[in-house]
């Protein structure tokens, strides 16, 4: 399995599109004033938006989404609009994939990320 990498620069539009598509309209993802009022730096991307991109990278490494059996990650760091996150997948033994998501400062935003897949 070759290493698969995808770099994504997050935008308010993408976060709003994910809110609409997923049904998660928590204002911490949409309203900067509200986000600051609860102690955040501003709006932040949904963890599940990040995990969705991670799943795409994992599926490509596995040879298709139909082969993915398990996916796990911990949401370890906040992702703000303008941040560029590099999502990567690499071989971790038979049926296993090691995953990572690192921002432009080298900080892991998803940790302990891994996937398992079937061979067919």
């Amino acid at each position: 399995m070759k290493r698969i990498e995808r770099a994504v620069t997050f935008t308010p539009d993408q976060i709003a599109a994910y809110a609409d598509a997923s049904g998660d309209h928590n204002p911490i993802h949409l309203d900067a004033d509200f986000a600051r009022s609860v102690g955040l730096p501003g709006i932040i991307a949904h963890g599940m938006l990040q995990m969705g991109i991670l799943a795409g990278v994992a599926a490509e490494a596995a040879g298709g989404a139909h082969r993915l059996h398990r996916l796990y990650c911990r949401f370890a760091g906040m992702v703000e609009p303008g941040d560029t996150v590099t999502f990567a997948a690499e071989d971790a033994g038979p049926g296993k994939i090691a995953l990572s998501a690192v921002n432009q400062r080298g900080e892991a935003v998803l940790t302990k990320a891994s996937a398992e897949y079937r061979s067919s």
Partner: protein
Amino acid sequence: MVEPDRVAAFARAIGADPADGVPPTFAAVYAVEATGPQLFGDPEAEVDFARLLHADQEFEWERQPEPGETVTSQGRVASDISRRGMRFLTFEITTMAEDGSALCRSRTLFVIRS
């Protein structure tokens, strides 16, 4: 129902090709969103959403649903622990096809800051 239009919008939002079928993490919609209102509506699970953080997530799939397929999800509060001013709430959700076969198991940990 796994709404085809919503699947396509979801795929585009995560940078996937809608032609590739239902994205695996669309389970966030048919499992977590489908059962969340009931699980959060549980008086024992009463939470302040502004202080809610999604801490981790695990999915296990037997297969991906087809666009247009009808699925049923059942969720439960697997654990609810308060420690050092933080509340740790775990939801476990099972999604089944119409014939009762398992499609997806989801495990979600939320942390609520005080």
